[in-house]
């Protein structure tokens, strides 16, 4: 190697490590990472005891990593490198063509949580409807990498029929439309279209007529969901978010925050977490009222976040809907229903969430 190339090599090495190190010192620190959805480490405060037990230097290392220049870009690059090496699984997310699908694991809570639902059926006099939403890993099983392990959600849904609850055939409704965009490509939730098919299956179980889908409105064209964040796969096209229900005349009471707003909270559309524009994100209890609904019945939905995009369709039928999230509103479901003039109870979870939910115990109390 001649002198020039030696100089070039030495210069590249020194400039790379020195330059990035210097840039790290010069660039301002960030407090929050929207992509990772967490606070980033800040420079730690010094103490002798922290120095002695090694936690001070460890905290400095975490700080240097968290605040590394162009952090998100490096992560995207690493994922691309692994992709080139043939990897299709990133942090428990499968990359299937242009679609990200969350890997679903078996969980020891799965059977116990079905028992809690059975206890609820036995405890209350009200009709209990059970809608288990299969996730993309089940409906789009044929898209998963060959032989990729995936939990058998259909078998779980079959087992759920023994709880005595009135079965809502979400699996059938979604399977019949598996060729359509019923799940987001970068997020684990179902799309508004998917939620509509979920709604039709509930109407069918009720023996009621489902309203036609109607004309949709696209409210966002740059939605990067949770799977975009977890996988580090940053080169996919963003999702679009549609609304099919205008929500006119509908009010949503956020009981915990003591405020009332419409069906949608548009401010979330300008943030990373755009799915929260339905209802306004995870909150213990929403009460939705629609004076123009087809019936004057009241529905209690015991639910996860999939119901945020389902509820708009339900407002066409029910004049009042209580959306209860047991992770935050830890109370006996039967007692709540008895005390709030509820006509029907709808237990509605995605399989992925129900099989590992730690708060389903309140269903049975």
């Amino acid at each position, binding site marked *: *190697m*001649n*002198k*020039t*190339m*030696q*100089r*070039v*090599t*030495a210069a*590249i*090495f020194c400039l*790379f*490590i020195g330059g*990035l*190190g210097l840039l*790290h010192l010069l660039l301002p620190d960030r407090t929050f990472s929207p*992509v*990772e*959805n*967490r606070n980033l480490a800040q420079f730690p405060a010094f103490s002798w005891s922290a120095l*002695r*037990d*090694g936690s001070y*230097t460890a905290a*400095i*290392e*975490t700080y*240097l*990593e968290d605040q*590394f220049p162009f*952090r998100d870009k*490096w*992560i995207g*690059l*690493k994922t691309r*490198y*692994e992709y080139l*090496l*043939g*990897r*299709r*699984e990133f*942090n428990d997310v499968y990359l299937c063509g242009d679609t990200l699908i969350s890997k679903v694991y078996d969980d020891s809570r799965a059977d116990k949580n079905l028992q809690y639902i059975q206890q609820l059926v036995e405890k209350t006099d009200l009709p209990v409807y059970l809608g288990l939403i299969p996730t993309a890993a089940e409906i789009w099983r044929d898209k998963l*990498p*060959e*032989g*990729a*392990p995936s939990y058998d959600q259909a078998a779980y849904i079959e087992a759920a029929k023994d709880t005595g609850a009135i079965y809502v055939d979400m699996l059938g409704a979604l399977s019949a439309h598996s060729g359509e965009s019923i799940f987001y490509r970068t997020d*684990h939730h179902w799309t508004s279209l998917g939620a509509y098919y979920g709604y039709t299956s509930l109407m069918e179980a009720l023996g009621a007529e489902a309203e036609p889908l109607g004309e949709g409105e696209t409210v966002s064209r740059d939605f990067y969901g*949770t799977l975009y*964040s*977890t996988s*580090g796969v940053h080169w996919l096209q963003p999702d679009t978010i549609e609304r099919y229900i205008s929500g006119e005349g509908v009010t949503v009471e956020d009981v915990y925050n003591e405020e009332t707003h419409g069906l949608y909270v548009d401010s979330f559309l300008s943030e990373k*977490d755009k799915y929260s524009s339905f209802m306004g994100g*995870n909150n213990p209890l929403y009460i939705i009222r629609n004076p123009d609904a087809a019936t004057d019945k009241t529905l209690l939905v015991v639910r*996860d*976040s999939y119901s945020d995009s389902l509820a708009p369709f339900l407002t066409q039928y029910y004049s009042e809907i209580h959306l209860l999230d047991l*992770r935050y509103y830890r109370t006996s479901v039967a007692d709540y229903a008895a005390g709030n003039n509820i006509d029907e109870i709808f237990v509605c979870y995605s399989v992925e*969430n129900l099989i590992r939910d730690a708060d389903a115990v309140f269903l049975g109390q």
Partner: protein
Amino acid sequence: MVFSGLPFLFFYLVVTLLIYKLTPLKLRNLVLLIASLFFYGWGEPVYIVIMFLSIAVDYTHGMLVERWRADDRKARMAVASSVFFNLLILVTFKYYDFLAGSLNALTGWSIPLLGVSMPIGISFYTFQTMSYTIDVYRQDAPVQRNIVTFGTFVTIFPQLIAGPIIQYKSVADQLQCRREDLEKFVSGVRRFCVGLAKKVLLANAIGKLWDVFLAADTAELTVLGGWLGLIAYAFQIYFDFSGYSDMAIGLGRMFGFEFIENFNYPYISRSVVEFWKRWHISLTNWFREYVYFPLGGNRVSRPKWIRNILIVWLLTGIWHGAGWNFLLWGLYYALWMLAERLFLGKRLEKLPAALRHIYTLAVVLVGWGLFAIEDMGQLGGYLAVCFGGGSLADAFTLYQLWSYLPLLVILAFAATPAAGKLFRKLPERVQGAITPLLVLASLVLCTASLVDASYNPFLYFRF
């Protein structure tokens, strides 16, 4: 601090190189000593005391050996005392709890355990300092009267925590005076980048595959999965360890040192004996020079020679970790060594090269099983599956195989000298032109991987 980490790469190395190169030659050992103490103290703030103690004690013993040179009995006492001190540190921190625990389990006593964490690199630097007094006694190297220079030898950060194990005599001259120029610096940069890529891009990536099979219930393991896991581990430990050695050798060159090679493509070996001439060379050399030869090596009666082999390999095994499986691993190799030297070797030579490769790799892979699985029950179950105690393959194993196949092909290629040969066949000008590009590519991809390793999305929104 580890070499393959953002704090080391972008801060520690930058500052240390800068100060070192700006310092006049006479003071460079002092800079290196201070920087190395900082390096060690960063990860082990309390155990830095052991470093100071090691420097002081071994320095003194070297001087004592020199002073008592005329009186061999006294000089030997000094050597013994130095060896005793180093082994005392090593045994206290590395083996005490294992010994006491095993004794308790055997006898029902309840000797209290220390429960202290092991200081990083203790197995490496105690072996290096032991070599010092022995080399001085044997007059393989002169005594070191300058305590800064001696301190630099003990603490020098490139090989402090993961080798190669430097014998004092091989660096005695370099500590006084070493050539530092652009050519050497650049060769150090190249070597460092190769090592970094081996560790970060190859070892870490294949490590995930081994984790999959190690975590699997042995009842669900398949034959193919068992072997795939062992192959993954074999690649992981080779690219991890040899990557560290490459980084150490590269860093050494950046500071003007020339350390011995530690690996020489071990997986192309055609016998177990050859494997150990190519694997962790500095450790094998150490045991040969300071244990095997003093015991008489192979110039003794056959029973004594067998005893010597057993001693060296049991020590080699237990050096790798305080656990029964490491002792078993050492014994395993002792038996293969004896078998090859006594009768197997001659028969092997008659076999085609491909079969000898397969034989060697099979022995080494099973060896890695003993090495990696510390739980004896799990070890038995795992190896039983490998040798037919399970179904041949299932969809899960095939899925893992397909998703790691491109990486496995790259690893197999990188474990042979082929890549280096190909590179050297290129015209000189082309070599020169692509070297900076390769260095840059290694740095960029490794940085991306290191940042990604700290990627930690918070998943409350999973619900």
